[in-house]
């Protein structure tokens, strides 16, 4: 058995080693080198790129990324919780209802982001409609701002929130709700004192999944955000294209990666079953 198993694992091991671990090692090496005169990297080895992550300019972008991701996560949680509750309680149809949430998730992220450009721009459907009805006379600046980015992120990643919430809510013991009601709790009290505390693992898993995905967002801020809405992902991309500062781009990538890993380890430790 051992030989067949080794043979079977070999292709994946090779792909993982050469196309994931090796590239990451190269990024690590680049992050410790100096910027070449014509782009690329040069010796000497230095920690300077990591120091520049604390530069106020980039610190501001980092804070903004946290702010946008945090707000998007919060909106996803607020929108997603009742949704997960609805699906968990819909009996035989729950699979259909769940799939209706997941389906758009598998249809082109790029197209879904573009759909919001179509709706939000100055001559887009929303502005055209509002002007036609006479509610407004000048188009509202709906596109190219932080709000549009948050909208795009919420639209894109809501399923990441609904799925883990649904998983915990579905397992929730119904008799606990009945007990709470029998003891005289109003529905609101049952929700805040019983349902929400018991679904904490789902809330944590969903929030962290959405948060880390938003933190690494690149496409959404690029298409829906204005020139000021720059997130970490855009900074990284920029270092490898126009700015030609590979060591800094590499350091920023690893910092982002480290953040993602720390957040994941936090939930993996507490609620392992939530993720795999």
């Amino acid at each position, binding site marked *: *058995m051992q030989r*067949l*198993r080794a*043979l*079977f*694992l070999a292709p*994946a091991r090779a*792909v*993982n080693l050469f*196309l*994931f671990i*090796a*590239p*990451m090692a*190269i990024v690590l090496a*680049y992050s410790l080198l100096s910027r070449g005169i014509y782009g*690329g990297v040069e010796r000497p080895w230095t920690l300077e790129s990591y120091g520049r992550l604390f530069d106020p300019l980039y610190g501001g972008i980092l804070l903004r990324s946290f702010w946008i991701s945090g707000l998007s996560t919060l909106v996803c949680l607020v929108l997603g919780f*009742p*949704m997960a509750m*609805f699906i968990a*309680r819909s009996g035989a149809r729950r699979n259909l209802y769940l799939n*209706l949430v997941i*389906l*758009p998730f*598998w*249809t*082109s*992220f*790029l*197209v*879904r982001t*573009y*759909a919001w*450009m*179509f*709706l939000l*721009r100055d001559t*887009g*459907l929303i502005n*055209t409609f509002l002007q036609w009805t006479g509610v407004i006379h000048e188009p509202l600046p709906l596109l190219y701002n932080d709000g549009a980015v948050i909208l795009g992120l919420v*639209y894109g990643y*809501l399923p990441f929130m609904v799925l883990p919430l649904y998983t915990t809510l579905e397992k929730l013991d119904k008799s606990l709700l009945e007990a709470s009601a029998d003891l005289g709790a109003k529905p609101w009290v049952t929700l805040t004192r019983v349902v929400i505390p018991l679904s904490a693992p789902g809330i944590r898993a969903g929030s962290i999944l959405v948060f*880390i*995905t938003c933190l*690494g967002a*690149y*496409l959404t801020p690029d*298409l829906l955000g204005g020139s000021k809405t720059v997130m970490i*992902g855009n900074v*990284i*991309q920029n270092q*490898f294209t126009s700015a030609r500062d*590979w060591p800094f*781009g*590499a350091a920023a*990538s690893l910092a*982002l*990666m480290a953040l*993602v890993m720390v957040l994941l380890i936090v939930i993996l430790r507490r609620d392992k079953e939530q993720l*795999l």
Partner: protein
Amino acid sequence: MKRHALGMYAVLIYAFLHVPLLVLAVFSFNSSKFTVWRGFSLEWYRTAFRDSALVEASINSLIIALVASLLATVAGTVCAYGLWKRSAPVLSESLYLSLVTPEIVTGISLLALFQWMFRFLRIQLGMHTVILAHVAFSLAYVVIVVMARLRTFDPSLEEAAMDLGATEWQAFRRVTLPSILPGVIAAGLLAFTVSIDDYVITSMVAGVDSETLPMVIFQMARRGVSPVVNAISTIIVVVLGGLVLVSERIQR
């Protein structure tokens, strides 16, 4: 509790999730360039099919997605089988990590690798680098889907085959593989979907001759909204949505 209120709320969220794409699809059949309905027309579809850059990018995308998903499905299926037989924590954790790595980080790390390969081995960016990148990021998806199917497979069936004289390979090939085949096909369709849709990673590792459909759409979208993009978007949503539905059916 208030079931009706919750139901109404769910309708609103479904509308939020689905209406933007529906509106986009409806307006792709609008004969006017502007966001005002002027009548039904297939003009934008005709324009899209006549656009040689778009057609070429679509062909590139199809070739890349077919080859990459095939490779990822084979490698991922045998990997899942190996992991199912006995766990390999380092490999599975590393695969899992590759799944949660932000796309932009995966993209630049692969770009760094290919640049380095160019420096020492003179390998240029092109279709092959895109295919390698796509195999890399879709592998973990395949492993997870096939693994889910394997967990429902009874290992004693395989033992029975071996007791009756089958070799390990024969037991896998003739007993296990046929019964996990729906999972394998679903995994392949999923790999195809994520491959044909990817923009972020692809745009970092593509060469001049290997522009993909999402890359062309992205450039067009950045220049502004156009009814041609609406038309291609509609085609993509319909095709990918169909594939996902097929894969869901097969998995069950």
